[in-house]
């Protein structure tokens, strides 16, 4: 199970937070801060796994993260997930974002966090991995976006009429 998925930048500013277990907002912020603190002080070429983090987890949980340019993608998972599998999943996630936003950069995540959530929802559901096939994810996301567009068009027409 995945307990939380966090994206924050090199300064610890959250860009996306998805908790699959309830914490109140303060604790969530603390977790983000703590995770950032743990992750950011690590060198570039050390391993991508990290134990600890008092707030989230406990001994069964691990932080698995990847660092891309200005962003950290952090997954907090328990022992039922394969570590390397999750690393691959992060890769798939980022590649999907790249496809959907056409050369994704931090600004895309800043201004379209809702879209990022929708993409993530096609990959992970309630803390369990739903889909790992990038093409399938993109197809579903596109179809939903199309639907949204057609609805908006319709709404515009109505308002003009």
């Amino acid at each position: 199970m995945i307990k939380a998925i966090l994206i924050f930048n090199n300064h610890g500013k959250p860009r996306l937070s998805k908790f699959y277990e309830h914490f109140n907002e303060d604790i969530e912020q603390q977790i983000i801060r703590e995770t950032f603190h743990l992750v950011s002080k690590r060198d570039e070429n050390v391993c991508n796994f990290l134990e600890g983090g008092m707030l989230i987890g406990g001994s069964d949980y691990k932080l698995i993260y990847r660092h891309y340019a200005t962003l950290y993608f952090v997954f907090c998972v328990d022992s039922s997930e394969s570590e390397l599998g999750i690393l691959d999943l992060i890769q798939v996630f980022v590649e999907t974002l790249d496809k959907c936003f056409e050369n994704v950069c931090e600004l895309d995540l800043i201004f379209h966090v809702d879209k990022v959530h929708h993409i993530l929802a096609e990959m992970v559901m309630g803390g369990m991995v739903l889909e790992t096939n990038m093409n399938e994810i993109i197809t579903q996301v596109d179809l939903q976006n199309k639907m949204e567009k057609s609805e908006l068009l319709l709404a515009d027409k109505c308002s003009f009429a």
Partner: protein
Amino acid sequence: MALKIVKGSIDRMFDKNLQDLVRGIRNHKEDEAKYISTCIDEIKQELKQDNIAVKANAVCKLTYLQMLGYDVSWAAFNIVEVMSSSKFTYKRIGYLAASQCFHESTDVIMLTTNQIRKDLSSPNQYDTGVALTGLSCFVTPDLARDLANDIMTLMSHTKPYIRKKAVLIMYKVFLKYPESLRPAFPRLKEKLEDPDPGVQSAAVNVICELARRNPKNYLSLAPLFFKLMTSSTNNWVLIKIIKLFGALTPLEPRLGKKLIEPLTNLIHSTSAMSLLYECVNTVIAVLISLSSGMPNHSASIQLCVQKLRILIEDSDQNLKYLGLLAMSKILKTHPKSVQSHKDLILQCLDDKDESIRLRALDLLYGMVSKKNLMEIVKKLMLHVDKAEGTTYRDELLTKIIDICSQSNYQYITNFEWYISILVELTRLEGTRHGHLIASQMLDVAIRVKAIRVFAVAQMATLLDNAHMLTGNTQRNGICEVLYAAAWICGEFSEHLENPMETLEAMLRPKVATLPGHIQAVYVQNAAKLFATVLKSQEGNTDSTTAQEASQLMIDRLPLFVQSANLEVQERASCILQLVKYIQKLQQKDVEVSEEVCALFAGELNPVAPKAQKKVPIPDGLDLDAWINEPPSESESEDEQPKAIFSKEEPKHSRPRHTEVDEKELARRREARKQEQANNPFYIKASPSSQKVYQETPGVEHIPVVQIDLSVPLKVPGLPMSDQYVKLEEERRQKERAEKKKKDKKKRKEKRSGRGKKHDSGPESEEDITPAHMVDIVTEEMPENALPSDDDERDPADPHKALDIDLDNLESAGKRPLADSEKLPVRSHRAAEVLKSPAEDEEGENVSSLEPKKKSSKEKREKKKDKDKDRKKSKEEKKKKKHKHEEKEEADLLCGQADEPAFQSEETNEVVTPPTSTSADEAATVAAAEAAPAPGAISVTTPDSEPEEPKDTEMEETKSSKHKKKKQKREKEDKEKKKKKKHHHHHHHHGDKGGEESVQNGTVEEEEPLPPMSNYCLLAENSYIKVAYDIQGNLQDGSQVVVSVIFENKCDSFLKSMEFNVLDSLNSKLQRPEGSGPHDSLTIPFQLPPGVSNEARFVFTVQSIIMPQKLKGTLTFIVKNEESSTHEKLDFKLHFTCTSYLITTPCYSDAFAKLLESGDLKSSSIRLEGVNMPFHHLLARICFHHHFSVVERIDSCASMYSRSIQGHHVCLLVKISSQTVSVDAKCDEPTLLGNVLDEIKQTFSQC
């Protein structure tokens, strides 16, 4: 053009979208919080608008703010509104917001059940998808129960996109509603072989999660998984399956044997590192499970270790990390094969990556031997010095202690070395593990007798240098060590070279700055040292030293007598008086040392940590049985009233102790001894413990070797463990040399010695003899200790509930699903639950006026369910006809208790409103549990799957449904009425009253209470029925909450309901900010036919002493397929004085005080011809008028309630032959008069 620009800017002004918000926040870096608070105000305004697009935009922005840490729970209701938009775009925004901020205690979740159900069955797959995704984040036990069946249906949806989501979410449903596991399992299993790989993967995922917690229930699936493993090419699925096998093999070694081959093949063939790694992991698990039985798998172990070595040597740090992680698993069972890679692991200790160092540390634990322990620890100590972060350093510290203390200090050959390591560790700054070091010091000093002399010397040095440990307040973690040091010096003071010096060190004024528990130990042990000093001076003609000691004590102890810590104070003042007395005796030249020493005599033995737990319960002792007769109820009732009105005398005071006879004293002494025996810190003198000690095998026979004096006993300053490493080396060499000599001698003499021959080759483990024969005193265990009981599982573990035997489902014959296990299915029934018993019949009629036209697929389905329902119940009835009446009753009872069908209905239709009190909730739950219903239905299938066996049944029902329907209904009704007498109130809303009064202690009798409801009819016409209840707001003395239940009685949709009341001067309906005083409130839901729902309205009231009536209207649109009409319903809201009262518990003493105070005006009424049991009467007053019973004596009871504005209302209710007199007191006579009138009215009605 210009117009367009204007329009655009207006849009901008009013609808700041998410991007604008983000941009704004970025532009207001210095006053972000202020900017956001203005944004939130804007959002609040937007949420008030009717336009759903504006609302959705606002909610979207809130989701972003939630991520930044702002609480947005206040908008929960708006989120629900957006969720229920018919447009996918908005729906998606709503569900996203809900998934981010809803959780189990979000009240409005209860309102979403119907909406989610509607979305789940939407023809648009993305509506369904979005609902499933959202639900997966905020599913509650209620939602899980109500929607389990809908989701199960979706598991067989035609679209794989829906199927995979439905399958995955089932895991969450199982967690929240474990009862759904059994009925859903067959279908879940079916999905393991779904043609779509995504669905298959989801099913594997769910079963793996389930099996991880309760593996034994899933063993039977092993063949299926085995097949999948050999056929699947999806690495993700393979990894999951292989992980699952890792969890299953410990339970079934045969499975392991079968797995080894395909897994080794995979290891050789796969190129995916993730898969390879998981294979290795599972092979390890298999080998562990086999290790006991078959040792013949060395090839596999070799393969694993080799592969892991490759991983560890890889330049990719991730692989290195995982390699070490897996290695530590092998270590447990095959330490030998790991130990050969010691070089590699020690190398990893120097890695720059902390995660890797930590893993390597874990491995070290298993790598140590007598030979290399000192070397490894030396290395670790170097790391301790270098370590930058405290976490890693603390980790190192604990590891050092773990490694050294493992398996009873097995690998320590020289305890002097270990003590000096511990002392060195005390120099660490800011560690959290002071207590760990302290407990090690204590443990070693107590259990290794031979080391005491050395330990005491070291501890004395520590005490002398205590300022180094305490000087800095930041290092206070380490001062725990002083606790150990003081205790060791005191307890083993006979080994001290200069007890007087240590005594002085322990009584320094600085000690008073230490934590209390340490000071207490200091004081107590100072006394022990004092005793030692006296003893050492015994027989010495010159008594100055002894007198100096006494004087020192007398001088210094007063400081501790003043301590704020009770323990310190108590000990210090005791000892001070004792020493004063001793000083007097000393001055008279009386020998006292013996007596003083006797205070602290006795040997102390360690007790095993679980000893207390393992004391077996003697035969014939029943811990649950009463020792005395339990005090009878009547007795306590007789006694209490006396105590209330007269002042209580302290009866149970000390004098009783004098009566205790000798026997009792002896018994107590025995008990105390027992207790002391189990207390590791109690110094005992009883010979019994000595006996136990002697009985421990082998301990006494080991000769205690004198300590090697090549090490100076008193190391100046603090000790250096390194010295010991060298010394130890020398010692070992010397020994080896001696042995060689001996061997030579032996050979010369050609005597056949012992069987063992020593190799002169490389030093083996056995060759190293410890420097001191270490007599580790074994820990004491009680006699007949029970065999080790493993720690139980955490009772709060949600997975415990999922430990359900699923094998029985395999073959249908074994144990088919009981009716009670079937998932709740929603069926259309009027919300009978809400009505008072008199109206029930009518309610049934309403439900039989079934909507005749139903367009959507969904509705058709529901109808089928219903028909099945009816059919079943009919069958049931047939069966029952042949049984005796009593049996029938019993059947009905269990049927009801088990029937979940109604539960779903209850919560769907009587949505408990957001502000419900806990008692309210409890009542609903209780009601749900006891709700009766005709037979539930197992599974509804969508039309797409015609081969489902139940369909035939459905067809049959369909054909004759119109005729049968009526008959069945009638029958059902009759049946219902029969049982109503007894059971109706269980599921009635009025049950709340029963609950409440039980809480207040009114209802002790078993006789059931008649059904009660506080909801009274507000207005009714042919479309709608409205009932209401008024309750005071606990928090606000000027508010009451009116809960209104709207029930759709017709077969059309009721929508756009608006509620309005003509405010009076005194009472006003609270309207949202910005709306006028005459605006009506929109009711936030629509009512499909036959459905009812509840809304709450808040009224502000000024004076509460008079009842009043408010006129109001309800307007709504009746919509059916052909037309929609606007309807209106007038009503009068009656605010009784009772409704301003709040049930408040009151204790009898407070009640008595209140009555005595004299501030209250009294009044009384008399009720004639009341023909009901007294407890019913009380329950009615409690329930309808919000009183609680303070106490009850026979046919007299005192009751209490409080108004929302704090008026006290006290009643004394007496009954004698159908006449009830109520004497009442209240600080507001008008209010009291009105309340009494209302009470009178309540009883005149029945």
